């Protein structure tokens, strides 16, 4: 098999994160600028070295367009700007854009940024769905509106097909919260039990509050540069060994209703492709950060990435493999469920932290290969990072 010219072409050399809260006293665009500044400082490079900016195409540019970010930073000759996908698939797939730019010489140092105000903005994560006339005509009149409702239908179908129980879903939330308890920056750190899950309010049957991700105001960023330049940066570089993006052919006006079987994600394409690019398999992965907008979506991707057979993802959580001390740690920062809902850029930041080492109580021993999975319904990105 030919080796991709993008394999290990770039490294992530700096990360920055804001404080995560339900309602930020500081405007989120300001948090975004701060996160970028912090990421560049973390890399130990001069701001003027940054000549490229990437982000998701929907959420971050809406709050702070790339040109406004560049104006804040005082970048005089920004040679590269690109956006892709929505939220998770964009932030996790962003190294694919940066690697192409840097490997071809189009740019030297590229920053990926993200921010979201869905913790405090009226309508939160649901509002942008309401602007679609198909949705307004064919889904909203029936109350089929809002991500918890779509994923409830997914979970119900999965239950029917594979015999999933509410306890299986609870175990995902419990394992993820156990990790968050070890992360000082996580929004929810109090450990939870199956009883807590059982008594948490039902949102859309079978999904309860504890099956749903948090709502967050926050921002994060990371800096990418060539592997050669990375050697002179402040921290041990984290190499982009593999990265893959895929969009599935599904009615672009439907967030999930028109999905063929409700049981799979494009991670089944991007996972093997990113791992193949890195020259490793699922068995080589030391930890995974998986887009857990809901407990059920984490299970679907864990299966599609090859960590468990279809229908058996729950065993990763029921048997403690994914929990602290387990054989395949999943969402070591607490994920979107318990760390922060910044749509997966925190998953990239956490993977970098784990591969640098020094994560204290939550450090995965001998972490050398991390897989990040970024989901946006019909689009998905997988990212393989190595120490």
């Amino acid at each position: 098999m030919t080796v991709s010219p993008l394999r290990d072409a770039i490294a992530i050399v700096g990360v920055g994160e804001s404080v995560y809260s339900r309602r930020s006293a500081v405007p989120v665009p300001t948090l975004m600028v701060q996160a970028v500044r912090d990421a560049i400082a973390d890399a130990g490079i001069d701001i003027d070295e940054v000549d490229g900016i990437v982000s998701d195409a929907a959420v971050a540019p809406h709050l702070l367009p790339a040109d406004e970010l560049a104006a804040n930073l005082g970048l005089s000759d920004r040679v590269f700007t690109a956006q892709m996908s929505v939220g998770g698939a964009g932030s996790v797939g962003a190294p694919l854009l940066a690697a192409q730019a840097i490997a071809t010489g189009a740019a030297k140092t590229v920053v990926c940024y993200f921010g979201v105000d869905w913790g405090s903005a009226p309508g939160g994560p649901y509002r942008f769905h309401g602007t679609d006339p198909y949705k307004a005509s064919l889904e909203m009149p029936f109350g089929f509106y809002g991500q918890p409702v779509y994923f409830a239908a997914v979970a119900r179908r999965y239950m029917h097909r594979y015999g999933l129980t509410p306890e299986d879903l609870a175990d995902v939330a419990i394992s993820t919260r156990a990790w968050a308890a070890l992360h000082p920056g996580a929004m929810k750190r109090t450990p939870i039990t199956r009883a807590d899950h059982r008594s948490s309010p039902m949102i859309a049957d079978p999904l309860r509050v504890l099956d749903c991700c948090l709502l967050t105001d926050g921002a994060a960023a990371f800096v990418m540069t060539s592997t050669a330049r990375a050697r002179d940066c402040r921290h041990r570089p984290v190499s982009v060994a593999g990265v893959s993006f895929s969009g599935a052919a599904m009615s672009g006006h439907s967030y999930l209703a028109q999905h063929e079987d409700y049981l799979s994600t494009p991670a089944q394409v991007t996972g093997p492709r990113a791992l193949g690019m890195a020259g490793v398999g699922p068995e080589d992965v030391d930890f995974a950060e998986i887009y857990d907008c809901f407990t059920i979506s984490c299970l679907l991707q864990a299966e599609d990435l090859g960590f468990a057979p279809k229908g058996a993802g729950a065993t990763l959580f029921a048997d403690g493999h994914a929990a602290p001390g387990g054989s395949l740690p999943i969402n070591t920062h607490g994920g979107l469920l318990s760390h922060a809902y910044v749509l997966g850029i925190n998953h990239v930041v956490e993977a970098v932290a784990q591969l640098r080492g020094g994560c204290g109580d939550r450090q995965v021993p001998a972490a050398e290969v991390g897989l990040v999975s970024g989901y946006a319904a019909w689009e998905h990105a997988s990212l393989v990072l190595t120490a």
Partner: protein
Amino acid sequence: MSAITVPNSGPWVPDITWPVLEEFWAAAREGRLVFPRCTACGRYQWYPQAMCPDCRAMAFEWDDVRPEGYVFSHTTLRRSFVPGEDGEQARHIVLVKFVHVPGVTLVTNVRGDMAPRVDLRARIIFDQVAPGVWLPVSELSED
């Protein structure tokens, strides 16, 4: 499952003058269920779009289908996120597929208070929710 205490359809009323779905709503007023079908290869495309993703032709006709489907999945909403609707509620939502109309899923509520289950039969009928506006609703049965 406690009895459903709110109307089958919520207060969000679609704009039936939007040209893309005008024929769907016109048929609904007459109690007919129609979906767009590619005139070249016969594929059903839902939701409507410009090109048939199978044969890449760009012409569709609205086709009358038998309103007999089955519950592919479902949820019961405890809290609505739809703007203007009260948060707390209990409303069954079913995602209906049709054996004879491959590739189509229709989102509806449920007539009466029968609790949905996967694979229950769903007969699509229409309820008037506003002047001239008739919404599809599923009547569930065991067989």
